[in-house]
């Protein structure tokens, strides 16, 4: 069997982001393998360990995405395919390109992160599934192969459900699916020699973007930061807090 994880490289959530000329400027920002995609990578490595086969990472993004792909290879994936394109490309367009590569790879199971930490998008897994004519299960928290099909538990708006899915299919990962492993030193060394095949998006006949980012602005709200010491007299602190919320903030 073959298992694919679609990954992305995103800014580390802990690092500051800045805007230059109305666009997010990522130069100097620490970039990482999207933490939600880590669950996807971990899952395909586990599948390979349990059932044999091949674990392949696939990505659509700028050249630098190779760094995140090396992280996935260091965790234990076998090889990578990177579709390169600069600038913002919307998930529907990305899906068309990814589907071409995936149709050729012909995996049984595809995983990707439930939500991207840069574009806050949840669309890539579902759009790629559509492009391939495969089903999608989003926010997967448990997964097992069973009689050539997959049995998965996934989150809904309220509650969850258990589904049985014919393969091939796409799954998006939710926190709790697994505990992603850290790359080991030998893993990092081995990853350097693993194959990453690069394909220009234009070669796949995919160009442009259906959506354009017109302008971006940092939206971190200014907070008042009024802190009351309640370590010695908690009741008095609580009274002062409630008074402030009532009289100053006027929210109670």
């Amino acid at each position: 069997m073959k298992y694919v994880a679609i990954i992305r490289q995103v800014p580390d959530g802990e690092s500051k982001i800045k805007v230059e000329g109305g666009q997010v400027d990522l130069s100097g920002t620490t970039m990482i393998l999207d933490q939600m995609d880590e669950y996807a990578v971990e899952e395909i490595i586990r599948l390979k360990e349990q059932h044999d086969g091949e674990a392949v990472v696939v990505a659509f993004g700028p050249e630098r995405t190779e760094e995140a792909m090396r992280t996935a290879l260091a965790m234990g994936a076998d090889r990578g395919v990177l579709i390169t394109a600069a600038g913002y490309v919307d998930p529907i367009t990305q899906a068309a390109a990814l589907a071409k590569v995936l149709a050729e790879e012909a995996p049984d199971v595809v995983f990707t992160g439930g939500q991207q930490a840069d574009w806050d998008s949840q669309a890539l897994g579902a759009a790629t599934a559509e492009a391939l004519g495969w089903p999608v299960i989003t926010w997967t928290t448990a997964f097992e192969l069973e009689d050539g099909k997959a049995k998965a538990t996934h989150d809904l708006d309220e509650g969850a459900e258990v589904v049985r899915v014919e393969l091939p299919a796409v799954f998006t990962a939710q926190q709790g699916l697994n505990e992603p492993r850290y790359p080991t030193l030998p893993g990092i060394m081995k990853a350097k020699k693993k194959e990453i095949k690069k394909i220009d998006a234009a070669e796949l006949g995919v160009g442009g973007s259906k959506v354009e980012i017109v302008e971006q602005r940092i939206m971190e709200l200014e907070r008042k930061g009024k802190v009351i010491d309640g370590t010695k007299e908690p009741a008095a602190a609580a009274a002062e807090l409630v008074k402030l919320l009532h009289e100053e903030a006027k929210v109670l």
Partner: protein
Amino acid sequence: MVLVVLDHDGSKLRKSALEGVTRGRKLAEVLGGDVVGLLIGPGADAVAEEAKDYVSKVYTVTGADFETYTAEKWAKAAQAAAAAAGAKAVVAPASRTGRSWTPRLAYKLDAALLEDTLDSWAEGDKVFATKYSFLNRVLEKQAAGLPAVISVKPNTTPLAEPAGAGTVEPLSVELGELERKVEVLEKIVESGGKVSLTEADVVVTGGRGMGSAEAFGMIEEFADLLGGAVGATRAVIDAGWRPYSEQIGQTGKTVQPTIYFALALSGAVQHQAGMNKSKVVVAVNKDPDAPIFKESDYGVVGDIHQVLPAMIEEVKKLKSA
């Protein structure tokens, strides 16, 4: 024509449906044509009676095939309705399910997808939308051509008023092979709180520092007192103290209440992604260096087991005054 996919609970429209109608009307003013609605699944026929007051026509898709949700089936139904209506734009709720079928629909229609939007409008034959990105830290304006599929972030848009009686038209949708590949084996129902988290004006969230599931009794009491909803951090869900449906953050729900109480939680970026747009944030934490204080308007440094009971007493006093 603009098609609005109307979320419902089997007996009435959800608030998100009326937000969708408002967005649909705004788009139709520029794009031309009427606003039509689509109801899918059990109860759609009954809800259509309510829905027809908001749109010129309500399509309903029901039957055994649509008893349970899958992204494939819902996308197929929306595609059929969009074709029947000749829709240039489709509006849908950015609920978790909404966000799982709308990408499929956009791909089917070769349309642009504007996801989880705060606002949306048309100019000429282009659509625009605003949304948050980068873990809710950036506000961006997006532009796209037609057709477009737009999902509406809950609680961002005024609710539509009724506008006279429309018609109801059942639509029959044939499932193909793809739509039969997912079989729902079991539903795991979590008892939702009395107040919907994403719609609540007050959210009271407890973190790992609460110490136990029992300690959430205090959180519930405080939330009840304020007519608010209970939230939890991932650490709390992992500990099994609260159901996942109450999780706030990157991998849980995003809330934007008037007042957000962050109690005995540290304020990790992944948690902030779900609450950093709240109007007023109040933190209680025993650690004066907890990151949440930097993200708060008001805070108390102290032990939650001492401070929260006192807060409950003070609010009771305020209420009876």
